[in-house]
């Protein structure tokens, strides 16, 4: 078990290392560097040379990569190209805001999704299930900016119940984001719920059809006892992985939602950085998001392993 755990951890670390190489190499390969982006038209001759000298861009890429990576390991993400501000400082507040948004969406979305998924799995092919399953397809396939626009139109413009845009500044405390945060959370939670619901539904159906549930039924165990004691603990296991993938998506893919609602999170900062060609900031954000993605998936794998004894041996044997 411990060996499994260490192996997973090691693989995760390798993935993060490869990601950092891809990010660095990607930025290297693209035409232009921090200096050409910063100096723009004046980027030629002596000035360019001086700037490159100052930022140490003339050293070989491998050396700069190692420098960057070891700094990042110590939590120092460097300075931005134009603002000359510490990136760690810039990212901090934004990351907190994005985490707040993600946490709210999770708190709303996961219980709803599990409840609705179980309901639609237990009443498979009944009207409830058809409504929920169709609704899920709608919620997960319609682009976020479309559902966000529709929600703003209905709840903000027509009904006037909720603010349709976030005006709070990036460094404000979490409490000030209410009630502005409600609509973005609803949009996020909707997409998330749809994905988790579908997984829970299919695994509930699978487990309810399994031999051991049939056995329990034949033994005369009451229906709801079967559902809660025998079926659900097993049926909810696959949900862990989907929740993990949704968390990862929450942190990376909310970019569009943050732009729609003008929410001061990491995603909007990323768009701004890309538009400004502020490469150090882009690199840093990419690294953070990728690390969170790998970390969350790793946690989910380990949780699944801990929760399901069968998987432990299965993995070891393999």
């Amino acid at each position: 078990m411990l060996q499994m755990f260490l192996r997973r951890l090691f693989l995760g670390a390798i993935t993060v290392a490869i990601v950092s190489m891809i990010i660095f190499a990607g930025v290297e390969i693209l035409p232009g560097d921090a200096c050409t982006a910063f100096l723009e038209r004046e980027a030629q001759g002596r000035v360019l040379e001086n700037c490159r000298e100052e930022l140490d861009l003339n050293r070989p890429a491998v050396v700069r990569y190692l420098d960057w990576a070891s700094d990042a390991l110590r939590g120092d993400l460097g300075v931005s190209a134009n603002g000359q501000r510490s990136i760690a400082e810039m990212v901090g507040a934004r990351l907190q805001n994005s985490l707040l948004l993600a946490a709210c969406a999770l708190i709303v979305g996961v219980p709803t999704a599990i409840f609705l998924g179980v309901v639609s799995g237990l009443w498979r092919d009944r009207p409830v299930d058809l409504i929920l399953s169709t609704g899920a397809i709608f919620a997960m396939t319609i682009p976020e900016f479309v559902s966000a626009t529709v929600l703003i139109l209905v709840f903000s413009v027509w009904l006037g119940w909720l603010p349709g845009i976030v005006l709070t500044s990036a460094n404000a405390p979490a409490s000030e984001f209410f009630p502005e945060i409600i609509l973005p959370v609803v949009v996020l939670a909707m997409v998330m719920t749809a994905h988790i619901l579908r997984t829970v539904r299919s695994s509930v159906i699978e487990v309810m059809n399994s031999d051991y549930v049939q056995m329990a039924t034949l033994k005369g165990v009451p229906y709801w006892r079967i559902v809660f004691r025998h079926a659900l603990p097993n049926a909810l296991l696959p949900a862990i992985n989907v929740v993990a993938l949704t968390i990862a998506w929450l942190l990376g893919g909310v970019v569009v939602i943050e732009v729609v609602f003008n929410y001061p999170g990491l995603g909007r900062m990323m768009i701004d950085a890309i538009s400004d060609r502020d490469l150090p900031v882009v690199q840093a954000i990419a690294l953070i998001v990728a690390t969170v993605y790998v970390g969350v998936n790793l946690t989910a794998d380990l949780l699944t392993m801990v929760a399901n004894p069968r998987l432990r041996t299965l993995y070891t044997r393999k």
Partner: protein
Amino acid sequence: MSLASIPQNSRLGRTLSVLRDVMSRPSGAVGLCLVVFHLILAVISPYIAPFDYRTMNAAMMLTGPDGVHFLGTDHLGRDVFSRTIQGGREAILVTGIATPIAVAWGGLVGIFFGLIGGRVDEVMMRFVDAFLSLPWILKMLVLIVTFGTGIEVLIPTLAFFYGIPVIRIARAATHDVVARDFVAAARARGHSRMTIMRKELLPNVLDALMVEGAMRWSWMLLAFSSLSFLGFGVSPPTPDWGLMIADARGFMSFAPWGVLGPVIALSTLIIGINLTADALAKALGIDRAQKAPV
């Protein structure tokens, strides 16, 4: 799907029977109709549009729907109906070319690594994982900001990035097949890797790839319209749903019709593709309920 109902040795026959199966499911019938409707509309819309999508009219800005302008006019006095029915052309063209390319290259690479397996395969998968852990929008935007937003950039970019997850699907599907006896038999007969890939593996992985292709198409459309919405996709004045929604959002409080047209058009197309993919997966017997939201 019962094998007995399939006419002997006919790819066309199998295609037809799968199609019949898809059409026999309510979701498949509705989905396929929506997709076909949008495809036809994309082809004929320039000929049936009542107005030129570029014609501006300063006297008719943000007017409501009436008999002449079915969906009103936008902030430049352009006919929203004409723009809406043509708003999918660019998106369908770009994603329609990029999807087959993505599925083809991702599928071949996936089958190849699934076949050779071993350490090379392990290392490759680490790279694929690493690539997938970066948000799509970051990868796409960096390339687009550097190289521009034309079709000639969007198609290869989409085809490249959306082919990477296909590698995983194809590899997993290959792993299920590669241990079977008929592959061992082909190896024993001394067939080359290429022959095994083409004759033994591809036909068995094709079903999974088809479903994956349908899903990729809808995700690509989503990505494409999101990029347009953010201002990194189609450049004005070309009509595009994402761009139209972005433009009309500012006037939503007093001219909501500008948003509704493209919202409905884009949603129906994407839902149509997904319903079709769902029905296709069921018809081919592939479970995609546990598919990751990547």
